[in-house]
């Protein structure tokens, strides 16, 4: 213990004796460690334990699947759920959740809150009990008995002032009076964003429905049952249902995923890629510090030889040197924590893709105990990593020569080691830069993608008309018709419209249809199209060109002949080489309920996800299919956001209890839809840039040191006739041969590694030759500059001075 303390004291003194070198090493390590801690903090919060369940490993997400259409997660039909529930033998509980947006009205101003309709066993599956009151009882899933609600802790605090007597009080949601039966504990808001829960009212019609897919399944595995066993059990049930209900269930299966994997699937790959990227940055940083230590080791040969001559064992020498490097690593860790604080703050402020709203665990993002423990661990590991090679080198001194010559010459093995470090740095940088390059190219492709509409000067806002108040279609039609005409008449507004799902908005609805003149498809191979409902001026407002026929007009009202507009893709698929206008299609089902609808126009394709190909899409006039949840869009002549308050007033003028939410410009909607790509590419580019800088410093440092070591040799060469260019060539060739080996290793590594990025890439293959070439050229150019600078210095060697060592 005493000797360890002495080692520590000596290490601190030794580091302080060379403040510049120590500072460079600490800053280099701090950048790597800080970046790792910041990203680990995100991983820890969002991927490792984001869910508010005591035992998430027993909980599964359950989806339907349609393999023939490549659909691996489809919402669940209620009748199918009921069969799974009664027939399975592997799940303790099976439940359902449905997205529910509700308007909370009453004494305060109307407010749209995010809710979820659930089966009564939802809390049992979650393994959580309400903090106040009780959970739902099974009978509350029956129509007429469902007028109850559970509040989340946040909503209880925010809207109800943490009223301790809230239980049994009533609230007004979407115009329906519900009794509050409980308040959930703090932190419980699954699915993320939940503020209120209500029971699903299972009407007999719903309970029979196998073609309305609106629910997410959730279940709890029986003790000792594995995921594959449960999957096999459900597969059997799905197989039976296919045979029993071929009309609706042909080609439909069921699939289960661990709930954690299912919840974080959108961003887990991106975050693990970030973690790998910062890992690379730290490794490059460690290689740089190891190089510094090796350079310093050359100057310490005499000191170490002296220690050995005085009786120090090799173990003692290595321990002394490793104590120094671990101390240095921990100093880097302390500064790294500060960098991580800043990094986490930047991530939190950036809130990419509204992660704060949608990503469970976001509130835990910060520098907490697990992050500090991780930082300590990587600080010590870094210290050992970069300290080991120099310590090993130094611990076997050639006593006589080291003591005689004063220990100034680098040994050939330390030169080899330094070369190896440079090769590793270049290889790691190349892998990181190629990854960053691929992500950046993907992102630029997406940004450059024509979405099919004009996002300039568009303001959007969401409304959900409560079903209880706006029961009838004409009421909903009239509301939006009046709102759109009021907004259109506002000064600064060029045109206005409403649509059920905004392009790039992330929500979607599809339905199966039939085409006149084309035989009805077999079960499981339905004609599917995206279901859009809009008001007449929608295409003009969004700048979507009507290619053939016409757009909707006020004449397309309820009771008028039903009309439909299709996109180019749908028209091309079903009426190739024909004019789609005038043709007819209808939704599946009995013809008396789904009559033929005439196509009156063909519009340009619109992207609803920039990273996916356009699919078949059709539009119905809102007056003939009046949805309650719509997005109002206004094309403005002024800065769009300046009109938000005025439009809210127009809404309130029609219905003072009607809240408006998610007010955004179309550019913001587009930015949010690209958030995963922009965040990943920006972060990877930053890490790639840091890696490149560190690698350049590494190459420069090694070449600079090599030139210093070879001063005499260069002097001799100049005395023998070498010109400045010969000396430059000598140094550059030496450095570039290391860089080229690094590039070769890096290219092989990148070729293998970038496959892991495949799911994040759009229109770019993981082995994209352009990216590989550009990055290789860039890295070699930087390496060339990093070699050239010391080479230039080498040309300044005065042979007379170099030879004067004689």
């Amino acid at each position: 213990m005493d000797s360890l303390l002495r080692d520590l004291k000596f290490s601190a003194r030794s580091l302080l004796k060379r403040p510049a070198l120590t500072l460079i090493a600490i800053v280099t390590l701090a950048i790597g460690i800080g970046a790792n801690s910041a990203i680990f903090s995100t991983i820890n919060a969002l991927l490792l334990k984001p869910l508010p369940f005591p035992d998430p490993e027993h909980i599964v997400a359950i989806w339907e699947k349609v393999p023939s259409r490549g659909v691996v997660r489809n919402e669940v039909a209620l009748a199918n759920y009921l069969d799974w529930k009664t027939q399975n033998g592997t799940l303790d509980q099976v439940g359902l959740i449905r997205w529910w947006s509700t308007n909370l009205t009453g004494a305060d101003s109307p407010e749209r809150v995010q809710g979820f309709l659930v089966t009564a066993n939802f809390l049992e599956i979650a393994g959580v009990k309400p903090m106040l009151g009780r959970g739902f009882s099974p009978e509350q899933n029956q129509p007429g008995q469902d007028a109850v609600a559970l509040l989340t802790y946040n909503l209880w605090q925010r809207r109800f002032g943490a009223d301790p007597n809230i239980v049994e009080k009533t609230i007004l949601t979407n115009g329906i009076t519900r009794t509050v039966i409980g308040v959930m504990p703090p932190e419980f808001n699954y699915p993320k964003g939940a503020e209120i829960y209500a029971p699903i009212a299972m009407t007999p019609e719903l309970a029979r429905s196998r073609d309305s897919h609106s629910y997410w399944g959730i279940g709890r595995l029986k003790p000792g049952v594995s995921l594959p066993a449960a999957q096999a059990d459900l597969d059997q049930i799905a197989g039976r249902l296919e045979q029993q209900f071929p009309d609706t269930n042909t080609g439909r299966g069921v699939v289960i995923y661990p709930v954690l994997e299912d919840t974080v699937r959108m961003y887990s790959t991106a975050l693990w890629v970030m973690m790998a990227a910062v890992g690379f940055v730290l490794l490059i940083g460690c290689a740089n510090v190891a190089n510094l230590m090796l350079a310093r080791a050359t100057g310490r040969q005499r000191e170490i030889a002296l220690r050995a001559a005085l009786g120090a064992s090799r173990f003692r020498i290595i321990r002394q040197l490793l104590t120094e490097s671990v101390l240095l690593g921990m100093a880097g860790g302390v500064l790294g924590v500060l960098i991580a604080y800043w990094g986490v703050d930047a991530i939190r402020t950036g809130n990419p893709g509204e992660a704060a709203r949608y990503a469970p665990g976001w509130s835990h993002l910060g520098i907490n105990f697990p992050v500090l423990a991780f930082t300590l661990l990587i600080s010590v590991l870094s210290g050992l990593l970069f300290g080991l090679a120099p310590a090993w080198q130094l611990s076997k001194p050639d006593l006589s020569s080291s003591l005689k010559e004063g220990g100034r010459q680098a040994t050939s093995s330390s030169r080899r080691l330094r070369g190896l470090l440079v090769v590793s740095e270049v290889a790691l940088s190349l892998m990181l830069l190629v990854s960053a390059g691929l992500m950046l190219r993907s992102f630029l492709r997406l940004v450059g993608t024509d979405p099919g509409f004009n996002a300039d000067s568009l303001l959007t806002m969401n409304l959900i008309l409560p079903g209880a108040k706006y029961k009838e279609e004409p009421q909903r039609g009239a509301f939006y018709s009046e709102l759109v005409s009021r907004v259109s008449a506002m000064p600064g507004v060029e045109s206005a419209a409403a649509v059920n799902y905004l392009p790039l908005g992330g929500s979607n609805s599809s339905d199966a249809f039939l085409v006149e003149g084309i035989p009805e498809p077999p079960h499981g191979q339905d004609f599917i199209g995206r279901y859009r409902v809009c008001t007449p001026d929608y295409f003009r407002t969004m700048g979507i060109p009507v290619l053939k026929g016409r757009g909707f007009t006020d004449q397309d009202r309820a009771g008028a002949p039903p009309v439909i507009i299709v996109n180019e893709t749908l028209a091309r698929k079903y009426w190739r080489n024909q004019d789609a206008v005038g043709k007819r299609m209808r939704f599946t089902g009995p013809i008396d309920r789904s009559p033929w609808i005439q196509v009156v126009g063909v519009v340009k394709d619109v992207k609803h996800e920039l990273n996916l190909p356009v699919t078949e899409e059709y539009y119905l006039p809102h007056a003939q299919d009046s949805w309650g949840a719509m997005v109002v869009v206004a094309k403005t002549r002024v800065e769009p956001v300046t009109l938000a308050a005025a439009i809210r007033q127009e809404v309130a003028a029609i219905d003072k209890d009607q809240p408006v939410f998610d007010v955004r410009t179309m550019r913001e909607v587009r930015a949010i839809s690209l958030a995963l790509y922009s965040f990943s590419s920006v972060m990877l580019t930053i890490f790639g840039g840091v890696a490149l800088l560190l690698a350049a410093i590494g190459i420069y440092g090694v070449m600079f040191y090599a030139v210093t070591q070879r001063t005499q040799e260069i002097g001799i060469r100049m005395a023998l006739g070498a010109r400045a260019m010969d000396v430059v060539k000598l140094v550059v060739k030496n450095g570039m041969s290391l860089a080229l080996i690094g590039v070769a290793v890096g290219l092989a590594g990148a070729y293998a590694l970038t496959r892991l990025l495949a799911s994040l890439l759009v229109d770019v293959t993981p082995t994209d030759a352009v990216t590989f070439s550009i990055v290789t050229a860039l890295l070699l150019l930087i390496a060339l500059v990093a070699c050239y600078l010391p080479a230039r210095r080498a040309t300044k060697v005065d042979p007379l001075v170099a030879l004067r060592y004689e």
Partner: protein
Amino acid sequence: MIRLSKIEKSFSHGVTKTYVLRRIDLDIQEGEFVSIMGPSGAGKSTLLHILGMHDQSWGGEYHFDDVAVHTLNPKKRADLRNRNIGFVFQSYHLLDDQTVFENLELPLSYRDVSKKDRQSIVCDTLDRFQIVGKKDLFPSQLSGGQQQLVGIARAVVANPRIILADEPTGNLHSSQGKEIMEMFKRLNNEGSTIVQVTHSEANAAYGNRIVRLEDGWVVKD
């Protein structure tokens, strides 16, 4: 061949100036074997490096074959040196990580001699110095005398007209030194001009002219 006129070399230390060479006038004819002698610090090596055009900062006039070296820029001086001068060092200064063959090849590579010609010239030189058997050895595998022999071979490989040698036997024992001096004598007999710096009267006796320096002045020629 060489005419030095009023060559001076000095170092400034603040306001004071220390002269290393003072008004050196020296003519060296083609085929001479000149020994520069004098006590330590007399300026012998400095004079040799000025002759070898390694030293660029001096005053006076230096003519090499009627070319006014003092008017040439460093690049032209280097060209002139590469064409005409070979250098032998006291510490041999062979490159440790290159074989004997590669060490000999080096001056030729700096004179843009093609690879094929380089190989042939180096082979001839190895043969001439009777060190063919050593061509694949590294300097550390040779004795001091053998290393200096390679050093001389390297100095003559590019066929210079004049060889400058800075105490070429300083690191060798007497029998090895004798061999080296005989090699210089032979080269001189074959037509090479030799200028050596030496402390040894015996070595100087191999030449036909002695120039003595003291405190930077030529005191005897």
